[in-house]
């Protein structure tokens, strides 16, 4: 039991005063689809990821709410009474200040929410597929349900009526006092475009309009409507047109612009600045960003001050007040689809690379002396090119994180301070591959051609581009830093080398989930040949797979309690595939080179998502058990069947040439597999092992729970070799250092890596090593981002922060003083006599 508590305590715990020392986090809401200013300089924003939030004047989140579920596209409207949202079949009213639910009700498919008035009371008009429902704001009760044909949208409202357009472009006028509907024939005249309080259908020089509830035909000499600016139409030549009397009247020419979503303002972009104009003629200028603007919301307050929000193409959102920027939120990171850790150069390495980059373009005879002097200078006086922020630190904690966003931008984030250093627009990115400490390749595929962009990762600038006429479906990256290879894989699985492999042959496997087929291929001199193939049973569907990223195996053998040596079967050519047929789960562990199935697992009564984690000889499978109504983890460990009972066996094996801890995929040894099932109380979204450079530190299993907590679990709890309580005979592979088997994994809040930080929408993990053997870096991402340094066995290779230096100085000083005093005492005659008599 004591061993239990020790393991539970030491897995992950930090002290309270270490909060923020080893971790950082970024909270996001995603791409903003609507935003409103409220009192106190705060803003209410809603995103396409189904997040509602209040943003403080500083740009931080005051509160944040998930509307039903992440990525459920929401509908939204608000007034001083509150916020109204619709998502996944639920209509909800929220308070503005706290984001508290006032009421919620189920609704069928809702198309639009509009606030209107009935007399002096405000009511909510909800447009569904064939009705409009009037909901009271106090209790959320249905006041009136009005059947319509096939409504398309509520086009405008005034104090007495709501106007709804149907799919045939007819307009229905609904009186908000008595809810009587009146059909206004409008369709069939031409394309109908609506502004804030009017709709117009144009046919040549004539137009039919609904304006203030009345339909009439007017002259239309102002050309085709290109867009709408609040209550105005923007027609050809960017003329602003108002419906007045019997004609469309041109008011102003506004030029190429972006209209405000909510007011009579527009924005004009130039290469150097952004100018925002109001209809009254005033304007302000803001500094331009190199990133195009997607949307803009503008206001003018009672003091005549401009304020508003600008949404950029990379999903970042900026809040301005007159010409000053109040805050910027990088919401592009709220859509992170994949993430890469890149190593940074040291200062010396950077000076070295800069020198060689310089002499590449300066290599004539006249440059010889200059180059020679530069070379000496680069070795003595390292060029400081303000690299410090992107310069490797002593323990390689500082890395460059490349976050790939669905906004089609990549962001370079420094891993220590979470600062964004640069961003780059990249379309259809497949992978990022680091070539050297200052260079990476971005591989993009547009469906027909593949583009390789060589990138300086420090500056974020393109060095060169290469294009290939192939459709790349995947990228193979193999080897280590000294000997790495990169191949592009096309849809026929042909390999095109970008950086060639030094070995003669290359083995790879292909998983065809659609047809339930797994194939192993060999690539030699540009030709692929099939080595093995495996077809799953009919009805079996491939769910997921994982490769055994064993890395460096520091300890290929394990000493058991009875002085035996057992050998891990940790071949890094193994991969595991999970498939499902009905409620049956199958997991195959396959050698990628020979195609041998090392192990096949079958579990019945399984549903939900399956998650795998594979490291060295350990394979873990997380699933939902239908019969027992709980989450379980199956733990499997693979060992070579031979066991050495003593040191003499080991020596005998060594000298007879039979001893080896290497693995050959051509000759699969006899494998002993141990499995055990554990009950885990929570569902997971992803799980991975931590890895270290030398593989000495015991790995920790990192899991993202469905509650968005990051849990660190000591793998000893999941070992299948935990002895059963009633089993007194010790088996060959038993390990008495492991706790006695108990089916339930103990739970401790101490192992929650994100402690009290409320994360949302995290679904993926990435891990990397540092130069400290005790420490790994783990990042969880998707909507939010959370990075933490994990030390599964505490930081045994550095002094801890609370190491008492004063105590050790005192102790050593005290001992030295004692030593001197005792020496003097012993040298006195009296002591000698006492000893010798």
């Amino acid at each position, binding site marked *: 039991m004591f061993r239990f508590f020790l393991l539970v*305590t030491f897995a992950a*715990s*930090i*002290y*309270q*005063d270490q909060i923020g020392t080893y971790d950082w986090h970024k909270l996001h809401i995603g791409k903003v689809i609507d935003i409103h200013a409220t009192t106190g300089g705060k803003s209410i924003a809603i995103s396409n990821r189904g997040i509602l939030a209040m943003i403080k004047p500083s740009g931080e989140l005051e*509160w944040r*709410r*998930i509307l*039903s*579920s*992440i990525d459920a596209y929401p509908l939204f409207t608000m007034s001083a009474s509150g916020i109204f949202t619709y998502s*996944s*079949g*639920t209509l909800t009213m929220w308070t503005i200040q*706290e*984001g*508290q*639910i*006032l*009421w*919620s*009700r*189920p609704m*069928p*498919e809702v198309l639009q929410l509009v606030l209107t008035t009935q007399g002096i009371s405000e009511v909510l008009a909800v447009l569904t597929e064939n009705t409009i429902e009037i909901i009271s704001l106090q209790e959320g009760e249905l006041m009136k349900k009005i059947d319509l044909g096939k409504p398309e949208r509520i086009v405008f409202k005034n104090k007495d009526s709501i106007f709804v357009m149907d799919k045939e472009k007819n307009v229905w006028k609904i009186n908000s006092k008595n809810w009587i509907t009146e059909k206004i024939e409008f369709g069939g005249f031409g394309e109908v475009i609506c502004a804030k309080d009017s709709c117009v259908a144009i046919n040549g020089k004539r137009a039919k309009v609904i304006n203030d509830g009345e339909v009439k035909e007017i002259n239309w000499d102002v050309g085709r409507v290109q867009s709408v600016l609040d209550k105005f139409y923007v027609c050809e030549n960017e003329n602003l047109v108002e419906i007045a009397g019997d004609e469309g009247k041109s008011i102003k020419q506004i030029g190429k612009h972006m209209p405000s979503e909510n007011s009579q303002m527009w924005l004009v972009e130039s290469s150097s600045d952004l100018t925002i104009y109001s209809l009254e003629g005033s304007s302000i200028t803001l500094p331009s960003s190199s990133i195009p603007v997607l949307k803009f919301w503008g206001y003018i307050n009672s003091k005549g001050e401009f304020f508003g929000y600008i949404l950029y193409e990379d999903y970042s959102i900026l809040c301005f007040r007159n010409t000053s920027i109040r805050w910027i939120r990088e919401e592009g990171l709220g859509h992170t689809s994949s993430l890469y850790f890149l190593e940074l150069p040291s200062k010396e390495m950077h000076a070295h690379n800069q020198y060689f980059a310089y002499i590449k373009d300066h290599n004539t005879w006249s440059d010889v002396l200059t180059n020679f002097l530069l070379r000496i200078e680069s070795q003595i006086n390292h060029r400081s090119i303000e690299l410090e922020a992107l310069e490797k630190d002593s323990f390689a904690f500082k890395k460059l994180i490349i976050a790939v966003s669905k906004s089609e931008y990549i962001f370079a984030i420094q891993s220590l301070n979470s600062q964004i250093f640069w961003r780059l627009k990249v379309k259809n990115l497949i992978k990022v591959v680091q070539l050297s400490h200052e260079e990476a390749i971005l591989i993009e595929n547009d469906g027909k051609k593949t583009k390789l962009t060589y990138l300086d990762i420090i500056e974020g600038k393109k060095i060169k581009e290469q294009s290939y006429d192939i459709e790349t479906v995947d990228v193979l990256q193999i080897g280590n830093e000294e000997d790495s290879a990169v191949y592009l894989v096309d849809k026929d699985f042909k390999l095109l080398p970008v950086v060639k492999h030094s070995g003669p042959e290359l083995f790879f496997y292909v998983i065809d989930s659609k047809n339930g087929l797994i194939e192993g291929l060999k690539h030699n001199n540009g030709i692929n040949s099939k080595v093995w193939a495996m077809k799953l049973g009919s009805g079996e569907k491939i769910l997921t797979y994982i490769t055994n990223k064993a890395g460096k195996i520091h300890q290929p053998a394990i000493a058991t309690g009875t002085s035996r040596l057992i050998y891990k079967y940790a071949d890094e050519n193994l991969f595991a595939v999970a498939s499902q047929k009905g409620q049956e789960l199958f997991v195959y562990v396959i050698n990628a080179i020979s195609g041998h199935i090392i192990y096949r697992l079958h579990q019945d009564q399984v549903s939900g998502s399956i998650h795998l984690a594979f490291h060295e000889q350990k394979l873990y499978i997380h699933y939902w058990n*239908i019969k*027992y*109504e*709980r*989450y379980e983890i199956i733990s499997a460990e693979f060992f070579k069947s031979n066991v050495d009972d003593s040191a003499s066996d080991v020596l005998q094996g060594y000298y007879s040439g039979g001893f080896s801890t290497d693995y050959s995929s051509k000759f699969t040894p006899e494998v002993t597999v141990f499995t055990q099932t554990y009950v885990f*109380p*929570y*569902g997971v*979204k992803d799980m991975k092992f931590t890895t270290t450079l030398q593989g000495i530190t015991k790995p920790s299993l990192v899991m993202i*729970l*469905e*509650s968005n907590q990051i849990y660190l679990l000591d793998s000893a709890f999941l070992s299948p070799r935990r002895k059963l309580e009633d089993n007194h005979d010790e088996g060959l592979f038993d390990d008495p250092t492991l706790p006695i088997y108990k089916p*339930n994994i103990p739970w401790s*809040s*101490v192992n*929650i890596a994100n*402690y*009290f*930080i*409320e994360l949302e929408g995290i679904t993926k993990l990435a891990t990397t090593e540092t130069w400290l053997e005790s420490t790994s870096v783990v990042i969880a991402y998707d909507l939010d981002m959370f990075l933490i340094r994990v030390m599964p066995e505490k930081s045994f290779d550095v002094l801890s922060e*609370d190491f008492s230096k004063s*105590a050790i100085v*005192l*102790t050593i000083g*005290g*001992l030295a003083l*004692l030593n001197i005093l*005792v020496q003097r005492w*012993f040298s006195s005659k009296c002591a000698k006599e*006492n*000893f010798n008599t």
Partner: protein
Amino acid sequence: MFIYLILGLAFSASITGEVFGPKNPAEKKFWNPLSVNIHLNGYKTTYLDASNSFVFHNVPDGIYVLEVLDHKHYYKTIVLEVLGENVVARDSNIFKGERIVYPLRMQAEKRHVYFEEREAFSIMSIFMNPMLLMTGFMLAVAFLMPKMKMDPEQMQEMKDMQKQMNSGWMSSLLSPPS
């Protein structure tokens, strides 16, 4: 799709419940219902209203795991079986255990402890230092041994042994240089 929607709604229930803060009045005053989230199978989320109640609408038939998340307090996880409009709730830790009261009444059980406690400074930690202990023991022996009153015969034996050692070939190695 319309037909499936109608059928789905016909066979779906609402899951309702109420959440209570810690029983201890001293902790209860720091309980913030606005920071409580309720997750259903990890994919649906809702929050507490002004009466500390929650509801999930339109939940189709199936088995669900409901978690109440409060960063300060721990709540039990519940397994819910939804069939038509009926909802049966059970403790997730007990297989097919007794039913739990429904609509749910979720009570905070204990506080989360996220951090290790730092050991406070203690003077005994200095004195328990092994190096200090060894030195202290050696000094004690050095002072006390001469004061021990030994049996004269044993004393004579010790002196004889010492003489033998001094006269042996190793004495030149053991004896200090003059």
